[in-house]
């Protein structure tokens, strides 16, 4: 694993340090790594990587253009699908932005339900990461165990919103519907059993000599590099910098929950793995607190200009009928202005910049995507490592290509 002394970064075609020429290899968009359609053009000197150039755009969906053509309340459905491993967190960023522009505050029960869904999603996203990373590095049983827990979380999603993955649960004005008693029961059972499962994963991986030798020392990202490259999420917390939006710039009532920010000074893939495991434990802690303190009350803001009136009112009140009609044909209009709201997803800072021109459709919606910025750090992490380590490094960056390409 040691590099020869005095190796410099060379360009394609030039002489490599070991005597041969540099070879350009294409890790094409269709390859076995389950991270989506990412294409990497890698210059190799023997087995060592000399440069990595990611080519993206293979999953570009035109989400930002699509949102300009949909009304404000319709846009929620589309926000689910860019970072497809954590849909409620994307919904939350958009909902908070629209609510800020409208100047409304959601009731406390809605905030608590939003926190519950966000933490469940964080768990689900880290489980997918661990399962697929384990699969790539050879620990195939991790995939089976992690997806078993994820299935429980998806069952809970289905109970509360009817959808397994793209719930569209968190909407501007509140949430889609109140939690059913069965959901609260399922959540309680889940919170009791999940720490045991996390212990299981740690038993399998944390002191495993193969896992350690494949991740310790690989993909080093120094704290200065992480700050300069704008990385967020476990990429920056794995390099020792204590920055988590839930603690530093809290939203949705996160300041009321007692949890620690997971930080590791290792600066390598193993450190990021430890950060994510700790984040999973802290997520269970937050879920316990949120469930115990779940306040009563309405789950939606009581503003007829934003949300439709209950069906019973339509029989008696003309004004309710007019509001209902206007909301379902044209939709509400948001006052002109622009706002940026960021939330902490499993990958880092996922934010939504919304520009309104006063009409019933947005002028511009821009998603600040954590994976887009984190992917630019790939070259810095992969330099002078072996080809086989590239797989570990792509895995540790935990990029979701839907988020990168939008």
């Amino acid at each position, binding site marked *: 694993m040691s590099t020869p002394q005095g190796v410099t970064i060379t360009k394609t075609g030039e002489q490599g340090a070991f005597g041969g020429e540099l070879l350009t290899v294409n890790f094409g968009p269709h390859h076995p790594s389950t991270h989506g359609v990412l294409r990497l053009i890698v210059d190799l000197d023997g087995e060592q990587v000399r440069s990595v150039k990611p080519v*993206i*755009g293979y999953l*570009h969906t*035109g989400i*930002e*253009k*699509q949102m*300009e*053509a949909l009304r404000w309340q319709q846009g929620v459905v589309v926000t689910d699908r860019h970072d497809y491993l954590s849909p409620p967190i994307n919904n939350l960023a958009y909902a908070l932005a629209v609510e*800020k*522009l409208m*100047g409304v505050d959601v009731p406390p029960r809605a905030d608590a339900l939003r926190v519950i869904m966000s933490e469940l999603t964080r768990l689900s996203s880290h489980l997918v990461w661990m399962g697929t990373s384990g699969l790539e590095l050879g620990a195939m049983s991790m995939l089976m165990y992690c997806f078993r827990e994820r299935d429980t979380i998806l069952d809970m999603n289905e109970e509360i919103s009817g959808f397994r993955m793209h719930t569209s649960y968190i909407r501007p004005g509140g949430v889609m519907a109140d939690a059913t008693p069965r959901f609260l029961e399922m959540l309680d059972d889940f919170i009791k059993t999940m720490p045991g499962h996390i212990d299981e994963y740690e038993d399998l991986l944390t002191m495993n000599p193969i896992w350690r030798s494949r991740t310790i020392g690989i993909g080093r990202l120094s704290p200065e590099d992480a*700050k*300069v*490259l*704008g990385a967020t999420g476990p990429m920056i917390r794995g390099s020792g910098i204590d*920055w988590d939006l839930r603690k*530093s*710039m809290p939203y949705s009532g996160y300041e009321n929950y007692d949890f620690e920010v997971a930080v590791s000074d290792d600066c390598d893939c193993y450190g990021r793995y430890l950060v994510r495991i700790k984040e999973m434990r802290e997520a269970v802690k937050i879920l316990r607190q949120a469930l115990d303190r779940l306040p009563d009350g309405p789950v939606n803001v009581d503003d007829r200009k934003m949300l439709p009136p209950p069906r019973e009112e339509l029989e008696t009140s003309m004004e309710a009928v007019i509001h209902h009609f206007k909301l379902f044909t044209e939709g509400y209009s948001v006052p*002109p*202005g*622009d*706002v*940026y709201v*960021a939330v902490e997803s499993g990958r880092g*800072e996922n*934010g939504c*910049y919304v*520009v*309104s*021109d*006063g009409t019933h459709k947005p*002028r*511009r919606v*821009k998603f*600040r995507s954590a994976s*887009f*910025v984190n*992917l*630019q750090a790939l070259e810095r992490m992969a330099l002078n490592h072996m080809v086989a380590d590239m797989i570990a490094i792509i895995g540790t960056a935990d990029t979701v290509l839907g988020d990168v*390409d*939008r």
Partner: protein
Amino acid sequence: MSSRGPLSIAENLVVERGVSAGDAWVTVEPANIKTALQSLKDDGFRLLVFLTCVDHLVDTSRQWPARYELVYELRNLDSKEQLRVRAFVDGDPPHIDSVHDIFPPANWEERETYDMFGVVFNGHPDLTRILMPDDWVGHPLRRDYPVGGEVVEFSEEHQVWQTAPEDA
């Protein structure tokens, strides 16, 4: 806003300032964008959160100085303040200086803005399309580019989405 008083940007660079839904913003001339961002970075705003463009074609909510508005959001990790810097450019294609040497994350963000809006960043090392295929014609996020897709019968959108919007 900062408790130390006015920002470190020299007052002669700031064209306008304001607050929008709780977010502080300033407008600078596009020619001064590098100086302004460098002085903000020296003052502690060391993270470029995002960089994007907004197309104000036929936007009647206020008087806009130019059609394309470039938006840079900066954050100070120590004091947790955020500031939005705007620059209005016009032209076909519009030009502005690249800030990738001040903030490395801007490299790909500027490529994306070029791909989607056609804004040319002077001094960018590799200004090529990043999300659309390399031989794509047109800049999709401009307001006069139609949404595209398939015509869906009996939907109110099918007429609107197939033509470039007259009134956005």
